[in-house]
C-alpha cells in the first residue's frame, strides 16, 4: 500500500447533480450528474431521481474536478505535533481539495528507516482523511554523508527519497542515491541549493535585499545546484523530481536535461508563482521561506513555464510553524509557509481568471501529473473509478481567513486575500473527507 488513508467512515453514496465535470485527462468538460455508489463512480450522465438511498447534492453548475495531489508537504509528525500532525494536516489538505499528499521525511526522528516509516503509515491508517504517501530520507539522519536504509524504506512503502529541508551537498552521495534508488524503481525529489552560495541569506538577493540590509540568497544558489544535480541524474539515467523551482534560470536547465533524455518532473509553489521579493519589504515573517520569493522576472518566467508545460506540478511545500516561532524579527524566523488550504483558490483567482494559465493546465498540474510522478492512484472522473474528486465554487468570492484554517498553523502569505475557488466538498478514496457547511 503506497498511499495510506484511515479506513474510517462509510463510503459515499450520493448523486451530485448538475456539476460541471472537468477532467482534462479524461477529456471531460460537461455539465451533468455523477452517481457515487459505495465510494465508486457508478454512473456519469443525467440520472432520474436520487441515488439508491436518495442522497442528492445540488452542484448548480459548480466545477467538479479530479481531486488534487500535493507532491510536497511537511506534516511535522513525528516531533512537532504542536505545529501539525497527520490528522490536522490531512484535514487541511481535504479542505483545499486534496485527495493525496506526499509527506517529507525531515521529521524528528527522521524517516530514514523502515521502523519510523512503518509507524507513520500506521498513524496515517488511523488518522488520515486523505491519502498520505511518505517519502524516505536520502541520507541517514539527513546528515548528507551516509545513505539511509533506502531499500528497507522502499519495501516499507516509501514512494520516493528526499532530504528536503536540506540539499544533498555531496555529488558523490547523490550519485550513490540515484544508483541505489534504481533497484527499487523510485524517484528522488531534490531540494536544489548550493549552501555555500546561499550562505546565511534570508531572502532573495537583489535590489530589495540591498535596500533592507538583509543577507541575500542568490538565484545561482539554486541554478548551480539544479545544473549539477540534473547532470548527475542524466549521467545515471535516473528519475528525478525538482522541488520548488523558484528561478527562471532553472527552467532552461530542466528543459536541456529533458532534451538529453532524462525523466524529470518539477514543481512550483503557489507562493513562488504569485509573489515576488517586493512582498518582503514589510519584513513580515509570513513571507520567509526557502527558496525565497524571487524577483518579478523570475515569477513571470515560472508562470509562463507552468502554462507552457516545463513546470508540470504544483507543490505547496506546506511548512507549518508555531506562531511564536514566526513572531520574531525576520532574520530569527524559520523558513516556510503553509499552502494546502489556499493553493487552488489563489492560483485559480490569480492565474486562471486572469488568463495566464488555462484551467486544464492548472488542474493537471495539481492532480494527474504529481500522482503519476510518485506512482499514486490517479484521481479520475470516470465510471468504475474510485471517487477522488472535489467540488469548487468559482463564482462566490471569499476572504482567506487563517483563523478558519484546519491546519494547526497560521503562517500563510495570503491572509486577507479576496479570492474565488472555494472548495465545497472533497471525496478522497471514496469517502467524504471535507464538506463545507451548508453543502
Amino acid at each position, binding site marked *: 500500500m503506497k498511499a495510506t488513508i484511515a479506513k474510517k467512515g462509510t463510503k459515499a453514496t450520493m448523486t451530485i447533480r448538475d456539476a460541471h465535470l472537468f477532467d482534462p485527462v479524461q477529456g471531460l468538460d460537461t455539465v451533468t450528474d455523477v452517481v457515487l455508489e459505495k465510494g465508486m463512480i457508478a454512473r456519469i450522465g443525467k440520472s432520474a431521481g436520487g441515488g439508491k438511498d436518495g442522497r442528492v447534492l445540488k452542484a448548480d453548475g459548480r466545477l467538479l474536478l479530479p481531486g488534487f495531489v500535493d507532491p510536497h508537504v511537511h506534516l511535522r509528525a513525528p516531533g512537532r505535533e504542536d505545529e501539525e500532525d497527520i490528522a490536522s494536516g490531512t484535514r487541511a489538505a481535504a479542505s483545499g481539495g486534496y485527495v493525496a499528499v506526499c509527506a517529507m521525511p525531515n521529521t524528528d526522528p527522521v524517516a530514514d528507516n523502515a521502523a519510523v516509516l512503518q509507524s507513520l503509515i500506521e498513524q496515517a491508517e488511523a488518522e488520515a482523511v486523505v491519502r498520505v504517501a511518505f517519502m524516505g530520507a536520502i541520507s541517514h539522519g539527513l546528515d548528507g554523508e551516509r545513505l539511509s536504509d533506502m531499500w528497507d524504506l522502499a519495501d516499507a512503502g516509501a514512494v520516493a527519497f528526499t532530504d528536503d529541508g536540506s540539499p544533498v551537498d555531496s555529488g558523490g552521495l547523490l550519485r550513490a542515491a540515484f544508483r541505489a534508488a534504481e533497484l527499487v524503481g523510485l524517484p528522488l525529489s531534490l531540494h536544489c541549493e548550493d549552501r555555500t552560495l546561499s550562505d546565511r541569506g534570508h531572502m532573495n538577493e537583489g535590489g530589495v*535585499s*540591498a535596500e533592507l*540590509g*538583509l543577507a541575500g540568497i*542568490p538565484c545561482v544558489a539554486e541554478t548551480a545546484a539544479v545544473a549539477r544535480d540534473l547532470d548527475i541524474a542524466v549521467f545515471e539515467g535516473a528519475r528525478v523530481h525538482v522541488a520548488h523551482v523558484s528561478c527562471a534560470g532553472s527552467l532552461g536547465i530542466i528543459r536541456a536535461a529533458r532534451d538529453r533524455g532524462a525523466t524529470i518532473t518539477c514543481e512550483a509553489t503557489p507562493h513562488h508563482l504569485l509573489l515576488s521579493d517586493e512582498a518582503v519589504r514589510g*519584513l513580515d515573517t509570513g513571507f520567509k521561506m526557502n527558496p525565497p520569493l524571487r524577483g518579478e522576472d523570475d515569477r513571470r518566467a515560472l508562470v509562463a513555464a507552468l502554462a507552457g508545460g516545463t513546470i508540470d506540478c504544483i507543490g505547496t511545500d506546506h511548512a507549518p510553524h508555531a506562531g*511564536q516561532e514566526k513572531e520574531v*524579527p525576520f532574520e530569527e524566523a524559520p523558513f516556510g509557509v503553509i499552502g494546502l488550504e489556499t493553493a487552488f483558490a489563489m492560483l485559480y483567482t490569480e492565474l486562471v481568471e486572469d488568463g495566464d494559465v488555462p484551467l486544464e493546465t492548472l488542474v493537471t498540474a495539481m492532480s494527474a501529473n504529481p500522482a503519476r510522478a510518485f506512482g499514486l492512484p490517479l484521481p479520475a472522473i470516470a465510471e468504475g473509478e474510485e471517487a477522488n474528486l472535489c467540488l469548487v465554487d468559482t463564482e462566490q468570492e471569499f476572504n482567506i481567513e487563517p483563523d478558519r484554517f484546519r491546519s494547526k498553523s497560521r503562517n500563510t502569505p495570503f491572509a486577507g486575500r479576496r479570492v474565488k475557488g472555494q472548495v465545497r466538498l472533497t471525496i478522497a478514496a471514496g469517502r467524504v473527507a471535507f464538506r463545507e457547511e451548508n453543502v
Partner: protein
Amino acid sequence: MNKNLLSINDLSREEIESILVTAAKDFLELPKRDIKKVPTLRGRTVIDLFYEKSTRTSTSFELAGKRLSADVINVKADSSAMGKGESLKDTVLTLNAYGPDIIVIRHPHVGAPAFIARYTDAHVINAGDGKGGHPTQCLLDIFSLKQEYGELDGLKVAMVGDILHSRVARSNIAGFRKMGMEVTLIAPPPLLPRGVESLGAEVAYSLDALAGVDVVYLLRMQKERHGDSGMIPSLREYIARYCVGRRHISGDQRVLHPGPINRGVEIEAELADSGENLILQQVEAGLAVRMAIMYRIIVDSAAASAEALEAGAAGEDRADADIKNIRAVG
C-alpha cells in the same frame, strides 16, 4: 514626527530640517553651560534596550535622556533575561508594563525596532538594527554637514569602505539624497551588496573617485561580519587600496566617520588626528540631535493627541471625552 523613528524614510526633508533646528537652537550649546540639564522630559522614562555592544551610541542616548531630565534605564544584552532565551516579544511586553515613554533599541537583526513597536505603547527609536539602518546616526551626520557647509543641496559625498555590512551606509544614502546631496559609494565589489543600483548612489571601485567630492565619509571595516571564508583576499591588500590618508584628501574636503574607527584600516592615524575630520563634531552633534529627537517625538505626539482631543471635545463627543479625562486622572 511620527510616533516612532524606525527608519530615516519615516521623516520628510521638512521634518529633518525642523529636528535639526531644534537641535541647534535648544541643545547644541548645552554642554558649554555650567548646568547641563533641562527639565524638558522630567517625569518621563526612557529605556535604552541594547542587544549589541555599543559604547558611543548607548552613551550618547543615555546622556541625552539624562540631560533632558528623564529617568533613563539601560538594559544590556548580558544583564537581562535576553541571554536566558526570552523572546524579544516577551522582553518588550515586560518592559512595556513599566510604562516607558521611549524605548531606544539597538539590535543585531533588521526590523527589530518595527517589530517591538507592535508590542509597546512607548515611542520606539531605532539605534541601529542589524545591517538595516541607523537613522539617528544619519540625522547627526546631516546636522554635522549642515553646521560645516550651511547649504546641503548639490553637496557631493563619497562613502568609502564596507558598504555591504553597513547600516550607516543604508540610512545615510537615503538621508543624504533626501537632503539633495549626491552620493558615490567606493568599495571593492565583494563589499558592495548585489542590487546596489537600487540604493540610488553611484558606484566606484577606486579611491581615485574621491577627486570630485566635497565630503569623504569613511565606514568601519566590519571584519567580524565577514564569515569564515572571508570576503576579501586579505586585509593587507584592502588597506593598500582603500585605507584613506591625508594624501587622498585635498584642500577643503572634510572627513566623517561614524566610529568606532579602526586606525590603519579604513583611516590612517594621521588623518584620524587631523583637523580635516569632523569626527569629534559628529559626537557633539550626536548628543544634541538625540536630545532633539527624544524631545520632539514626545512633544509632537502630545500636540497631535491634544489636537485630536480638542477636535473631539468640540463636537458631541465632549461628554465622552470628559469622562475619559476623568478616568485618566482617576
